Protein backbone atom coordinates (compact mmCIF):
# COMPACT_ATOMS: atom_id res chain seq x y z
CA UNK A 1 0.00 0.00 0.00
CA UNK A 2 1.14 3.48 -0.79
CA UNK A 3 -0.56 6.04 1.39
CA UNK A 4 0.35 9.41 2.83
CA UNK A 5 1.97 9.10 6.25
CA UNK A 6 0.30 12.26 7.50
CA UNK A 7 -3.17 10.73 7.76
CA UNK A 8 -4.26 11.38 11.35
CA UNK A 9 -5.14 8.54 13.71
CA UNK A 10 -8.77 8.99 14.62
CA UNK A 11 -8.97 6.64 17.58
CA UNK A 12 -8.26 3.05 18.54
CA UNK A 13 -10.55 0.15 19.37
CA UNK A 14 -8.85 -1.39 22.41
CA UNK A 15 -11.60 -3.62 23.78
CA UNK A 16 -14.07 -5.96 22.09
CA UNK A 17 -16.34 -8.56 23.64
CA UNK A 18 -19.13 -10.72 22.24
CA UNK A 19 -21.50 -12.21 24.79
CA UNK A 20 -21.25 -16.02 24.64
CA UNK A 21 -25.00 -16.53 25.14
CA UNK A 22 -27.48 -16.99 22.32
CA UNK A 23 -30.44 -17.64 24.63
CA UNK A 24 -30.52 -15.41 27.71
CA UNK A 25 -33.75 -16.36 29.44
CA UNK A 26 -31.93 -16.36 32.78
CA UNK A 27 -30.54 -12.81 32.53
CA UNK A 28 -32.02 -9.33 32.57
CA UNK A 29 -31.16 -6.77 29.90
CA UNK A 30 -29.22 -4.81 32.52
CA UNK A 31 -27.20 -7.92 33.43
CA UNK A 32 -26.38 -8.48 29.76
CA UNK A 33 -25.34 -4.82 29.45
CA UNK A 34 -23.05 -5.25 32.45
CA UNK A 35 -21.61 -8.52 31.12
CA UNK A 36 -20.65 -7.03 27.76
CA UNK A 37 -19.42 -3.71 29.20
CA UNK A 38 -17.16 -5.38 31.76
CA UNK A 39 -16.08 -7.99 29.19
CA UNK A 40 -14.89 -5.35 26.72
CA UNK A 41 -13.16 -3.34 29.44
CA UNK A 42 -11.38 -6.46 30.71
CA UNK A 43 -10.32 -7.25 27.14
CA UNK A 44 -8.81 -3.76 26.92
CA UNK A 45 -7.14 -3.98 30.32
CA UNK A 46 -9.25 -1.11 31.64
CA UNK A 47 -11.79 -0.79 34.44
CA UNK A 48 -15.21 0.79 34.63
CA UNK A 49 -13.83 3.85 36.40
CA UNK A 50 -11.71 4.62 33.32
CA UNK A 51 -14.87 5.15 31.24
CA UNK A 52 -15.91 8.77 30.72
CA UNK A 53 -17.97 8.39 27.53
CA UNK A 54 -20.95 6.03 27.11
CA UNK A 55 -22.67 5.13 23.84
CA UNK A 56 -25.74 2.95 23.56
CA UNK A 57 -28.82 2.36 21.45
CA UNK A 58 -32.48 2.07 22.41
CA UNK A 59 -31.84 -1.60 23.24
CA UNK A 60 -30.46 -0.29 26.57
CA UNK A 61 -33.43 -0.37 28.94
CA UNK A 62 -34.65 2.77 30.64
CA UNK A 63 -33.99 6.42 29.95
CA UNK A 64 -31.41 6.64 27.18
CA UNK A 65 -27.98 5.92 28.68
CA UNK A 66 -28.99 7.04 32.17
CA UNK A 67 -30.40 3.79 33.52
CA UNK A 68 -27.34 1.77 32.51
CA UNK A 69 -24.92 4.48 33.68
CA UNK A 70 -26.74 4.34 37.02
CA UNK A 71 -26.73 0.50 37.10
CA UNK A 72 -23.00 0.31 36.32
CA UNK A 73 -22.27 3.44 38.40
CA UNK A 74 -20.33 5.12 35.59
CA UNK A 75 -18.78 8.58 36.06
CA UNK A 76 -19.42 10.18 32.66
CA UNK A 77 -18.84 13.44 30.85
CA UNK A 78 -20.08 12.43 27.38
CA UNK A 79 -23.08 10.38 26.18
CA UNK A 80 -24.49 9.54 22.74
CA UNK A 81 -27.60 7.53 21.90
CA UNK A 82 -27.54 7.71 18.12
CA UNK A 83 -30.17 5.26 16.87
CA UNK A 84 -30.06 3.98 13.32
CA UNK A 85 -31.25 0.55 14.43
CA UNK A 86 -28.76 -2.27 13.70
CA UNK A 87 -26.08 0.03 12.29
CA UNK A 88 -26.07 2.29 15.38
CA UNK A 89 -22.88 0.76 16.79
CA UNK A 90 -20.82 1.56 13.68
CA UNK A 91 -21.94 5.15 14.01
CA UNK A 92 -21.15 5.03 17.74
CA UNK A 93 -17.51 4.12 16.96
CA UNK A 94 -17.32 7.02 14.50
CA UNK A 95 -18.93 9.42 16.95
CA UNK A 96 -16.69 8.19 19.76
CA UNK A 97 -13.63 8.87 17.62
CA UNK A 98 -14.96 12.38 16.92
CA UNK A 99 -15.72 13.01 20.61
CA UNK A 100 -12.24 11.80 21.58
CA UNK A 101 -10.62 14.02 18.92
CA UNK A 102 -12.66 16.96 20.22
CA UNK A 103 -11.48 16.32 23.79
CA UNK A 104 -14.96 15.42 25.04
CA UNK A 105 -13.97 12.02 26.43
CA UNK A 106 -10.96 9.71 26.72
CA UNK A 107 -12.41 6.22 27.06
CA UNK A 108 -15.67 5.51 25.24
CA UNK A 109 -17.72 2.42 26.08
CA UNK A 110 -20.23 1.21 23.45
CA UNK A 111 -22.76 -1.48 24.37
CA UNK A 112 -25.50 -3.62 22.83
CA UNK A 113 -27.71 -6.23 24.48
CA UNK A 114 -31.03 -7.76 23.51
CA UNK A 115 -33.26 -10.77 24.12
CA UNK A 116 -35.55 -11.25 21.09
CA UNK A 117 -35.63 -15.05 21.57
CA UNK A 118 -36.69 -14.78 25.19
CA UNK A 119 -39.13 -11.94 24.52
CA UNK A 120 -40.62 -13.61 21.44
CA UNK A 121 -40.01 -10.79 19.01
CA UNK A 122 -38.09 -12.92 16.58
CA UNK A 123 -40.77 -14.57 14.50
CA UNK A 124 -40.84 -13.04 11.06
CA UNK A 125 -39.04 -9.90 12.08
CA UNK A 126 -42.39 -8.10 12.27
CA UNK A 127 -42.14 -4.34 12.03
CA UNK A 128 -45.22 -3.14 13.81
CA UNK A 129 -44.99 0.11 15.60
CA UNK A 130 -48.37 1.19 16.84
CA UNK A 131 -47.47 4.85 16.90
CA UNK A 132 -49.63 6.83 14.48
CA UNK A 133 -47.42 9.86 15.10
CA UNK A 134 -44.83 8.10 12.98
CA UNK A 135 -45.49 9.97 9.69
CA UNK A 136 -45.19 6.83 7.56
CA UNK A 137 -47.44 4.70 9.79
CA UNK A 138 -50.70 5.04 7.87
CA UNK A 139 -49.01 4.61 4.47
CA UNK A 140 -47.18 1.41 5.38
CA UNK A 141 -48.60 -0.53 8.33
CA UNK A 142 -52.11 -1.10 6.85
CA UNK A 143 -50.44 -2.71 3.82
CA UNK A 144 -48.59 -5.30 5.89
CA UNK A 145 -45.13 -3.75 5.73
CA UNK A 146 -42.64 -6.09 7.43
CA UNK A 147 -38.88 -6.40 7.44
CA UNK A 148 -39.15 -9.59 5.37
CA UNK A 149 -41.12 -8.10 2.49
CA UNK A 150 -39.03 -4.94 2.34
CA UNK A 151 -35.91 -7.05 1.77
CA UNK A 152 -37.94 -9.33 -0.50
CA UNK A 153 -38.86 -6.41 -2.74
CA UNK A 154 -35.24 -5.26 -2.79
CA UNK A 155 -34.05 -8.70 -3.89
CA UNK A 156 -36.86 -9.02 -6.44
CA UNK A 157 -35.92 -5.74 -8.08
CA UNK A 158 -32.20 -6.57 -8.08
CA UNK A 159 -33.02 -9.82 -9.87
CA UNK A 160 -35.18 -7.90 -12.37
CA UNK A 161 -32.57 -5.23 -13.09
CA UNK A 162 -29.42 -7.36 -13.10
CA UNK A 163 -30.43 -10.98 -13.56
CA UNK A 164 -29.30 -11.96 -10.06
CA UNK A 165 -30.43 -15.48 -9.13
CA UNK A 166 -31.52 -17.27 -5.95
CA UNK A 167 -28.51 -19.59 -6.39
CA UNK A 168 -26.17 -16.60 -6.31
CA UNK A 169 -27.79 -15.22 -3.14
CA UNK A 170 -27.52 -18.70 -1.62
CA UNK A 171 -23.72 -18.62 -2.00
CA UNK A 172 -23.64 -15.87 0.65
CA UNK A 173 -25.29 -18.16 3.21
CA UNK A 174 -23.07 -21.05 2.11
CA UNK A 175 -19.93 -18.97 2.76
CA UNK A 176 -21.22 -17.86 6.20
CA UNK A 177 -21.95 -21.48 7.12
CA UNK A 178 -18.43 -22.57 6.13
CA UNK A 179 -17.13 -20.06 8.68
CA UNK A 180 -19.69 -20.88 11.38
CA UNK A 181 -18.63 -24.55 11.50
CA UNK A 182 -15.44 -23.40 13.26
CA UNK A 183 -17.24 -21.19 15.79
CA UNK A 184 -18.35 -23.30 18.74
CA UNK A 185 -20.68 -20.56 19.93
CA UNK A 186 -22.43 -20.11 16.54
CA UNK A 187 -26.20 -20.53 16.71
CA UNK A 188 -26.24 -22.51 13.43
CA UNK A 189 -23.03 -24.48 12.81
CA UNK A 190 -24.11 -26.82 10.01
CA UNK A 191 -22.44 -26.30 6.65
CA UNK A 192 -25.18 -25.77 4.06
CA UNK A 193 -25.21 -26.03 0.27
CA UNK A 194 -26.75 -23.82 -2.40
CA UNK A 195 -29.45 -26.50 -2.77
CA UNK A 196 -30.20 -26.42 0.96
CA UNK A 197 -30.86 -22.69 0.73
CA UNK A 198 -33.03 -22.70 -2.36
CA UNK A 199 -34.96 -25.75 -1.12
CA UNK A 200 -35.74 -24.11 2.23
CA UNK A 201 -39.28 -22.67 2.43
CA UNK A 202 -40.00 -19.43 0.59
CA UNK A 203 -40.86 -16.79 3.18
CA UNK A 204 -41.10 -13.55 1.17
CA UNK A 205 -40.38 -13.96 -2.53
CA UNK A 206 -37.65 -14.34 -3.59
CA UNK A 207 -36.13 -14.89 -0.14
CA UNK A 208 -36.04 -18.35 1.43
CA UNK A 209 -35.82 -19.15 5.10
CA UNK A 210 -32.07 -19.72 4.82
CA UNK A 211 -31.62 -16.29 3.19
CA UNK A 212 -32.55 -14.83 6.61
CA UNK A 213 -30.36 -14.27 9.68
CA UNK A 214 -30.76 -16.09 12.96
CA UNK A 215 -32.63 -14.61 15.93
CA UNK A 216 -30.47 -14.62 19.06
CA UNK A 217 -30.22 -13.14 22.53
CA UNK A 218 -26.93 -11.67 23.64
CA UNK A 219 -24.90 -8.61 22.87
CA UNK A 220 -21.46 -7.12 22.65
CA UNK A 221 -19.39 -4.12 23.58
CA UNK A 222 -16.41 -2.09 22.40
CA UNK A 223 -13.96 0.30 24.02
CA UNK A 224 -12.59 3.18 21.95
CA UNK A 225 -9.84 5.45 23.20
CA UNK A 226 -7.24 8.03 22.25
CA UNK A 227 -3.79 7.07 20.86
CA UNK A 228 -1.81 7.73 24.08
CA UNK A 229 -4.03 5.46 26.14
CA UNK A 230 -4.20 2.78 23.42
CA UNK A 231 -0.39 2.60 23.28
CA UNK A 232 -0.20 2.21 27.06
CA UNK A 233 -2.32 -0.97 26.92
CA UNK A 234 -1.13 -4.49 26.10
CA UNK A 235 -3.48 -5.22 23.18
CA UNK A 236 -2.69 -5.14 19.44
CA UNK A 237 -3.37 -1.65 18.08
CA UNK A 238 -6.52 -1.42 15.95
CA UNK A 239 -6.82 2.05 14.51
CA UNK A 240 -10.03 3.52 13.11
CA UNK A 241 -8.83 5.26 9.95
CA UNK A 242 -12.06 6.00 8.12
CA UNK A 243 -15.73 6.36 8.97
CA UNK A 244 -18.88 7.21 7.05
CA UNK A 245 -22.63 7.28 7.59
CA UNK A 246 -25.63 7.73 5.33
CA UNK A 247 -29.37 7.62 6.03
CA UNK A 248 -31.32 6.56 2.96
CA UNK A 249 -35.12 6.70 2.51
CA UNK A 250 -37.97 6.98 0.03
CA UNK A 251 -37.02 10.49 -1.13
CA UNK A 252 -40.55 11.71 -1.64
CA UNK A 253 -41.42 8.69 -3.78
CA UNK A 254 -38.50 8.80 -6.25
CA UNK A 255 -35.95 6.21 -5.19
CA UNK A 256 -33.98 3.14 -6.26
CA UNK A 257 -34.27 0.44 -3.61
CA UNK A 258 -31.34 -1.56 -4.97
CA UNK A 259 -28.99 1.28 -4.02
CA UNK A 260 -28.02 1.20 -0.35
CA UNK A 261 -26.60 3.99 1.77
CA UNK A 262 -23.27 2.11 1.67
CA UNK A 263 -22.55 3.86 -1.63
CA UNK A 264 -22.23 7.10 0.33
CA UNK A 265 -20.96 5.92 3.72
CA UNK A 266 -18.31 3.78 1.99
CA UNK A 267 -17.08 6.57 -0.26
CA UNK A 268 -16.72 8.90 2.75
CA UNK A 269 -14.84 6.28 4.76
CA UNK A 270 -12.52 5.25 1.89
CA UNK A 271 -11.67 8.89 1.15
CA UNK A 272 -10.90 9.59 4.79
CA UNK A 273 -8.81 6.44 5.12
CA UNK A 274 -6.98 7.02 1.84
CA UNK A 275 -7.41 3.40 0.79
CA UNK A 276 -9.34 1.58 -1.95
CA UNK A 277 -11.64 -1.45 -1.86
CA UNK A 278 -8.87 -3.55 -3.44
CA UNK A 279 -6.66 -2.88 -0.39
CA UNK A 280 -9.16 -4.43 2.07
CA UNK A 281 -8.17 -7.90 3.34
CA UNK A 282 -11.35 -8.75 5.26
CA UNK A 283 -14.93 -7.42 5.35
CA UNK A 284 -17.67 -7.67 7.95
CA UNK A 285 -20.90 -7.00 6.09
CA UNK A 286 -24.32 -6.66 7.68
CA UNK A 287 -26.15 -9.87 6.88
CA UNK A 288 -29.73 -9.55 8.06
CA UNK A 289 -30.47 -11.25 4.72
CA UNK A 290 -28.30 -12.49 1.88
CA UNK A 291 -29.43 -9.59 -0.31
CA UNK A 292 -28.11 -7.12 2.30
CA UNK A 293 -24.59 -8.49 1.75
CA UNK A 294 -24.94 -8.35 -2.02
CA UNK A 295 -25.89 -4.67 -2.08
CA UNK A 296 -23.05 -3.71 0.28
CA UNK A 297 -20.47 -5.50 -1.87
CA UNK A 298 -21.62 -3.48 -4.88
CA UNK A 299 -22.20 -0.17 -3.13
CA UNK A 300 -18.89 -0.25 -1.23
CA UNK A 301 -17.12 -0.78 -4.55
CA UNK A 302 -15.88 -4.38 -4.18
CA UNK A 303 -17.56 -5.07 -7.54
CA UNK A 304 -19.52 -3.09 -10.10
CA UNK A 305 -23.23 -2.37 -9.58
CA UNK A 306 -25.20 -5.39 -10.68
CA UNK A 307 -22.17 -7.73 -10.52
CA UNK A 308 -22.74 -8.81 -6.91
CA UNK A 309 -24.40 -12.08 -7.89
CA UNK A 310 -21.43 -13.20 -9.96
CA UNK A 311 -18.97 -11.88 -7.35
CA UNK A 312 -20.26 -14.07 -4.51
CA UNK A 313 -20.39 -17.34 -6.45
CA UNK A 314 -18.10 -20.32 -6.04
CA UNK A 315 -17.05 -19.52 -2.49
CA UNK A 316 -15.52 -16.14 -3.25
CA UNK A 317 -16.45 -14.94 0.26
CA UNK A 318 -14.98 -17.99 2.05
CA UNK A 319 -11.76 -17.42 4.00
CA UNK A 320 -8.86 -19.31 2.42
CA UNK A 321 -10.88 -20.00 -0.73
CA UNK A 322 -12.15 -16.75 -2.18
CA UNK A 323 -10.87 -13.30 -2.92
CA UNK A 324 -12.77 -11.43 -0.20
CA UNK A 325 -13.31 -13.29 3.11
CA UNK A 326 -16.40 -12.02 4.92
CA UNK A 327 -18.06 -12.59 8.30
CA UNK A 328 -15.60 -15.21 9.47
CA UNK A 329 -17.50 -15.74 12.74
CA UNK A 330 -20.48 -17.00 10.72
CA UNK A 331 -22.13 -13.58 10.78
CA UNK A 332 -25.76 -12.91 11.48
CA UNK A 333 -26.74 -15.58 8.98
CA UNK A 334 -25.26 -18.35 11.18
CA UNK A 335 -23.53 -17.14 14.31
CA UNK A 336 -25.27 -14.33 16.13
CA UNK A 337 -27.59 -11.37 15.50
CA UNK A 338 -28.07 -10.23 19.10
CA UNK A 339 -31.12 -8.11 19.75
CA UNK A 340 -31.98 -8.18 16.02
CA UNK A 341 -29.10 -5.69 15.66
CA UNK A 342 -26.09 -7.00 13.81
CA UNK A 343 -23.79 -3.98 13.77
CA UNK A 344 -21.91 -4.71 16.98
CA UNK A 345 -20.88 -8.25 16.04
CA UNK A 346 -19.70 -6.99 12.63
CA UNK A 347 -17.22 -4.67 14.32
CA UNK A 348 -16.11 -7.30 16.87
CA UNK A 349 -15.15 -9.86 14.20
CA UNK A 350 -13.32 -7.19 12.19
CA UNK A 351 -11.34 -6.32 15.35
CA UNK A 352 -10.52 -10.03 15.86
CA UNK A 353 -9.27 -10.26 12.28
CA UNK A 354 -7.09 -7.15 12.50
CA UNK A 355 -5.66 -8.37 15.81
CA UNK A 356 -5.00 -11.80 14.32
CA UNK A 357 -7.30 -13.32 16.94
CA UNK A 358 -9.97 -14.87 14.72
CA UNK A 359 -10.35 -18.66 14.74
CA UNK A 360 -7.19 -20.10 13.09
CA UNK A 361 -9.30 -21.88 10.46
CA UNK A 362 -10.68 -18.55 9.21
CA UNK A 363 -7.98 -16.02 10.19
CA UNK A 364 -6.96 -13.99 7.14
CA UNK A 365 -3.18 -13.91 6.69
CA UNK A 366 -1.58 -10.55 7.41
CA UNK A 367 -4.95 -8.90 7.91
CA UNK A 368 -3.73 -5.33 8.32
CA UNK A 369 -6.77 -3.62 6.79
CA UNK A 370 -10.43 -4.47 7.34
CA UNK A 371 -13.80 -2.90 6.73
CA UNK A 372 -17.00 -3.27 8.75
CA UNK A 373 -20.34 -2.11 7.44
CA UNK A 374 -23.81 -1.96 8.94
CA UNK A 375 -27.25 -1.46 7.42
CA UNK A 376 -29.79 -0.49 10.08
CA UNK A 377 -33.51 -0.10 9.58
CA UNK A 378 -34.78 -1.76 6.41
CA UNK A 379 -33.46 -1.82 2.89
CA UNK A 380 -36.40 -1.06 0.64
CA UNK A 381 -37.84 1.70 2.79
CA UNK A 382 -35.61 3.47 5.33
CA UNK A 383 -32.15 2.53 6.50
CA UNK A 384 -28.80 3.97 7.51
CA UNK A 385 -25.44 2.61 6.43
CA UNK A 386 -22.40 3.00 8.65
CA UNK A 387 -18.86 2.17 7.47
CA UNK A 388 -15.67 1.73 9.48
CA UNK A 389 -12.20 1.07 8.09
CA UNK A 390 -9.76 -0.44 10.59
CA UNK A 391 -5.98 -0.77 10.30
CA UNK A 392 -3.43 -2.65 12.37
CA UNK A 393 -0.65 -0.40 13.56
Amino acid at each position, binding site marked *: MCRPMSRPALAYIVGAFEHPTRDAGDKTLAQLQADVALGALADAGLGKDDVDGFFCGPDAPGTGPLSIADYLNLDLRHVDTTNTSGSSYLLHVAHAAQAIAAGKCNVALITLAGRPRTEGRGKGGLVRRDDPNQPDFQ*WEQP*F*GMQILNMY*GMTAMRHM*HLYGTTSEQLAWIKVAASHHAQHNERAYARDVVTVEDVINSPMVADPLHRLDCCVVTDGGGALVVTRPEIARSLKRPLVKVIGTGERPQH*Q*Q*GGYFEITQSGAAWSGKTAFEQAGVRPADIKYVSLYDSFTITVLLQLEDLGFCAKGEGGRFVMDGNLISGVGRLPFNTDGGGLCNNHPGNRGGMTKIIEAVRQVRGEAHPAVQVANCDLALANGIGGQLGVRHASGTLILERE
Partner: protein
Amino acid sequence: MNERVFIEPQPSAETEAFWHAAGEGRFLVKRCTACGKAHWYPRSHCPFCASADTVWEEASGEGVIYSYSVMRRAKPPYVMAYVTLAEGPTMMTNIVDCDPDGLSIGDAVTLRFVTTAEGAALPMFAPKAAAGVVDPAEERP
Protein backbone atom coordinates in the same frame (compact mmCIF):
# COMPACT_ATOMS: atom_id res chain seq x y z
CA MET B 1 -58.85 -19.14 3.79
CA ASN B 2 -58.81 -16.68 6.69
CA GLU B 3 -60.09 -13.16 6.18
CA ARG B 4 -57.20 -10.72 6.09
CA VAL B 5 -57.00 -8.36 9.07
CA PHE B 6 -55.52 -4.94 8.27
CA ILE B 7 -53.92 -2.51 10.69
CA GLU B 8 -56.20 0.54 10.59
CA PRO B 9 -54.57 3.62 9.00
CA GLN B 10 -55.47 6.17 11.75
CA PRO B 11 -55.82 9.39 9.69
CA SER B 12 -54.32 12.59 11.09
CA ALA B 13 -55.25 16.24 10.59
CA GLU B 14 -52.60 16.29 7.86
CA THR B 15 -54.14 13.38 5.94
CA GLU B 16 -57.85 13.38 6.80
CA ALA B 17 -58.79 14.65 3.32
CA PHE B 18 -57.08 11.67 1.71
CA TRP B 19 -58.93 9.04 3.73
CA HIS B 20 -62.24 10.89 3.41
CA ALA B 21 -61.90 10.94 -0.39
CA ALA B 22 -60.79 7.30 -0.42
CA GLY B 23 -64.01 6.44 1.41
CA GLU B 24 -65.87 8.02 -1.50
CA GLY B 25 -63.83 6.08 -4.05
CA ARG B 26 -61.47 8.88 -5.02
CA PHE B 27 -57.69 8.38 -4.92
CA LEU B 28 -55.73 11.56 -4.16
CA VAL B 29 -52.06 12.44 -4.40
CA LYS B 30 -50.33 15.55 -3.13
CA ARG B 31 -48.81 17.94 -5.66
CA CYS B 32 -46.71 21.03 -4.98
CA THR B 33 -47.93 24.14 -6.81
CA ALA B 34 -44.55 25.83 -6.34
CA CYS B 35 -42.38 23.22 -8.12
CA GLY B 36 -45.15 21.23 -9.81
CA LYS B 37 -43.97 17.83 -8.58
CA ALA B 38 -46.22 15.13 -7.08
CA HIS B 39 -44.89 13.24 -4.07
CA TRP B 40 -45.69 10.16 -1.97
CA TYR B 41 -46.51 9.65 0.88
CA PRO B 42 -48.64 12.79 1.15
CA ARG B 43 -47.45 15.56 3.49
CA SER B 44 -48.12 19.24 4.01
CA HIS B 45 -44.67 20.48 2.99
CA CYS B 46 -43.19 19.60 -0.39
CA PRO B 47 -40.27 17.17 0.14
CA PHE B 48 -38.48 18.67 -2.87
CA CYS B 49 -38.71 22.47 -2.61
CA ALA B 50 -40.07 22.70 0.98
CA SER B 51 -43.01 24.87 -0.11
CA ALA B 52 -46.18 24.66 2.00
CA ASP B 53 -48.25 25.16 -1.16
CA THR B 54 -49.19 21.52 -1.64
CA VAL B 55 -52.64 20.55 -2.91
CA TRP B 56 -54.62 17.33 -3.20
CA GLU B 57 -55.44 16.22 -6.71
CA GLU B 58 -57.33 13.20 -7.96
CA ALA B 59 -54.89 10.69 -9.42
CA SER B 60 -55.48 8.48 -12.43
CA GLY B 61 -55.15 5.26 -10.44
CA GLU B 62 -52.86 3.89 -13.14
CA GLY B 63 -49.38 2.60 -12.47
CA VAL B 64 -46.78 -0.12 -12.99
CA ILE B 65 -45.28 -2.59 -10.52
CA TYR B 66 -41.90 -1.26 -9.28
CA SER B 67 -41.26 -4.32 -7.13
CA TYR B 68 -43.24 -6.87 -5.13
CA SER B 69 -42.86 -9.72 -2.65
CA VAL B 70 -45.35 -12.44 -1.79
CA MET B 71 -45.71 -12.98 1.96
CA ARG B 72 -46.03 -16.75 1.77
CA ARG B 73 -46.47 -17.52 5.45
CA ALA B 74 -48.99 -14.80 6.26
CA LYS B 75 -52.54 -16.07 6.73
CA PRO B 76 -53.82 -15.43 4.13
CA PRO B 77 -50.72 -14.72 1.99
CA TYR B 78 -50.60 -11.27 0.40
CA VAL B 79 -48.54 -9.42 -2.21
CA MET B 80 -46.58 -6.46 -0.83
CA ALA B 81 -45.63 -4.06 -3.62
CA TYR B 82 -44.32 -0.72 -4.69
CA VAL B 83 -46.28 0.77 -7.60
CA THR B 84 -44.98 3.70 -9.64
CA LEU B 85 -47.95 5.97 -10.30
CA ALA B 86 -48.61 7.63 -13.66
CA GLU B 87 -48.24 10.91 -11.71
CA GLY B 88 -44.59 10.06 -10.95
CA PRO B 89 -43.96 8.89 -7.40
CA THR B 90 -43.72 5.28 -6.25
CA MET B 91 -45.99 4.19 -3.38
CA MET B 92 -46.14 1.23 -1.02
CA THR B 93 -49.27 -0.84 -1.61
CA ASN B 94 -50.50 -4.38 -2.25
CA ILE B 95 -51.36 -6.17 -5.48
CA VAL B 96 -54.77 -7.83 -5.11
CA ASP B 97 -57.11 -9.92 -7.29
CA CYS B 98 -54.14 -11.57 -8.94
CA ASP B 99 -52.22 -14.81 -9.33
CA PRO B 100 -49.11 -14.04 -7.22
CA ASP B 101 -47.04 -16.40 -9.37
CA GLY B 102 -48.05 -14.54 -12.55
CA LEU B 103 -46.77 -11.08 -11.58
CA SER B 104 -43.76 -9.26 -13.03
CA ILE B 105 -42.05 -5.97 -12.33
CA GLY B 106 -43.23 -3.50 -14.96
CA ASP B 107 -46.75 -4.95 -15.20
CA ALA B 108 -49.49 -2.35 -15.64
CA VAL B 109 -51.86 -2.15 -12.67
CA THR B 110 -54.95 -0.17 -11.81
CA LEU B 111 -56.44 1.11 -8.56
CA ARG B 112 -58.66 -1.14 -6.46
CA PHE B 113 -59.81 0.11 -3.04
CA VAL B 114 -59.89 -2.55 -0.33
CA THR B 115 -61.94 -1.88 2.80
CA THR B 116 -60.69 -2.58 6.33
CA ALA B 117 -62.78 -3.90 9.24
CA GLU B 118 -63.41 -0.35 10.43
CA GLY B 119 -64.33 0.87 6.94
CA ALA B 120 -61.14 2.63 5.80
CA ALA B 121 -60.50 2.32 2.05
CA LEU B 122 -56.91 1.26 1.35
CA PRO B 123 -55.53 2.14 -2.11
CA MET B 124 -54.35 -1.14 -3.63
CA PHE B 125 -53.84 -2.26 -7.20
CA ALA B 126 -54.84 -5.12 -9.48
CA PRO B 127 -53.23 -6.29 -12.71
CA LYS B 128 -54.74 -4.31 -15.55
CA ALA B 129 -55.68 -7.31 -17.66
CA ALA B 130 -57.68 -8.77 -14.77
CA ALA B 131 -59.18 -5.51 -13.56
CA GLY B 132 -60.54 -4.02 -16.76
CA VAL B 133 -61.58 -6.53 -19.38
CA VAL B 134 -63.08 -9.77 -18.15
CA ASP B 135 -62.37 -12.68 -20.45
CA PRO B 136 -65.85 -13.91 -21.53
CA ALA B 137 -64.53 -17.46 -21.55
CA GLU B 138 -63.95 -17.22 -17.79
CA GLU B 139 -67.45 -15.87 -17.15
CA ARG B 140 -69.02 -19.21 -18.06
CA PRO B 141 -69.63 -21.56 -15.15
